[in-house]
């Protein structure tokens, strides 16, 4: 699926003293099978933006297009199945008596047969190393365990575009790495992933393109190298190290991913 936002604007509480212009004309495309990273400071509009991708919020200006078609003309349930959104605080959406039932809820709504539902539930839980949580109550879990359950619930819908709003907050480092590997696996299977994160190191590892938001506008969009080297002070650790070395060692180039950066550093030392 190709998801396009055209000049999207959004105002919270319009006409009141608390009016906030959260998006001030954002245009971007999520191409089929790409990982688009969305970064930006607190309050820059990231969560507001991603809630437009399945029309959980309706833009107060501009439009959202799915394969060129105005998304408001599509059935909401259909759109929400095709664009799966994991909220920034997904824990608050858990509701069923067990984790298993919680994860099964959405796929069951799709009218799949029970065997398929169970298969998807197990597969999604296992992908997040949450298999052993299946029979537990989602309310009696640790913070990170709740988050895994919530992400599994959206995965089980098998969306064409998976939108993750700060999914790694609260995950232990190994689980964070597993989730990043999972994102790359989905991408390789043709699914688009939108990853909102304030952890630039993880965006650097998986994103094909990065969109940087600032005060409700797109400050920069492009490849990770284009976006991050433009403002190295607000870049992942790899880019910060490399850009500090670049002044005296221009041969280091513009590495972004960990492995690329390591190769570049080794080449520098070998020289």
């Amino acid at each position, binding site marked *: 699926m190709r998801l396009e936002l055209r000049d999207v604007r959004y105002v919270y509480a319009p006409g009141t003293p608390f009016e906030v212009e959260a998006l001030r004309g954002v245009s971007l495309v999520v191409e089929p099978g790409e990982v688009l990273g969305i970064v930006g400071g607190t*309050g820059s509009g990231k969560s507001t933006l991603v809630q437009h991708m399945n029309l959980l919020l309706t833009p107060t200006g501009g439009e959202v297009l799915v394969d060129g078609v105005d998304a408001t003309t599509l059935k909401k349930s259909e759109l929400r199945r095709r664009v799966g959104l994991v909220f920034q605080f997904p824990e608050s959406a858990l509701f069923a008596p067990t984790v298993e039932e919680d994860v099964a809820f959405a796929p069951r709504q799709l009218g799949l047969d029970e065997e398929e539902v169970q298969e998807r539930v197990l597969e999604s839980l296992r992908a997040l190393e949450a298999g052993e949580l299946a029979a537990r109550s989602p309310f009696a879990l640790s913070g*990170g365990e709740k988050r895994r359950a919530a992400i599994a619930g959206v995965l089980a819908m098998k969306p064409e575009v998976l939108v993750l709003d700060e999914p790694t*907050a609260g995950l232990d480092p*190994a689980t964070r790495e597993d989730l990043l590997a999972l994102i790359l696996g989905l991408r390789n299977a043709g699914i688009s992933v939108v990853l909102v994160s*304030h952890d630039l190191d993880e965006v650097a590892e998986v994103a094909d393109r990065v969109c940087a938001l600032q005060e409700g506008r797109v400050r920069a969009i492009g490849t990770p190298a284009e976006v991050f080297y433009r403002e190295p002070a607000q870049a992942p650790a790899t880019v*910060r190290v490399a850009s500090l*070395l670049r002044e005296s060692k221009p041969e280091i180039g513009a590495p972004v991913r960990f492995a690329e*950066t390591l190769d570049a550093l*080794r080449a520098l030392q070998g020289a």
Partner: protein
Amino acid sequence: MEHPGEGTRNGGSFVVSCESVSFSYPGSGRPALSDVSFELRPGEYVGVVGPNGGGKSTLVRLLNGLLKPDSGRVLVSGRDPATEPFEVRKHLGILFQDPENGLVAPFVEDDVAFGLENLGVPRKEMRDRVAGAIRAVGLEGFERREPDTLSGGEKQRVALAGLLAVEPDILVLDEPTSMLDAAGRREVLAYLETLRAEKTVLHVTHHLEELVRSDRILVLNGGELVADKTPERFLSDADLLRENRLVLPVVQRLALEIGLSPARLRTPETLAEAILAKTESGTRAG
């Protein structure tokens, strides 16, 4: 169970002590904490890490009496939070993991003032402390916003301001930066750094880079305290890290991979300098 007289530890060298503390949530087969013992000395900055479900937040809830141990004992400034929770909460303040749930008042400034209201602080002083705390976390201009309408990082700052306003001697921070952006994280960490020595801090996190300057790091896994080490030893113990689902931060991992010591290179700047020094000396020698 032993019952040492009230205050046997009082005036001793510990502000927090856990003696063989065990706890299971009702109806749960597996203990969330088993036989955990450790102490905090005044002014120490101690990190807590470990896998999801390791017992970190459970430990936090036992420290202010929100949960009571099944066995063993917690002492905070010589008092037992299980029996004197209100007394303990004047000395020990907690920033809980979930910034969503903690915010209760209609406006940000009321929320920050909430903890103070129970302490009987005079109005004028209360206003000053609230304003100071809001400034400390960079939330000026948000005083009259409704907490419900804030972004995740903004909520987390409100919760931190509420804790700071109470001015406890002991700060317990459960993933205090999980929702902050890179700049906000740096600011909050820099602020915590200014409290060094003045406050005792217990800092739970999944971001190991936040703990490179701590005095000690505790590792909780499966409810057991499996390590209590200096950051230097901790960061260079690959087995310990792997067994506890921990991954070195990028700077330290790069350092290690190119043969530099990860423990002393804390920032991209220090790593870049070390690499330059090494390549320069290499060229001069060659």
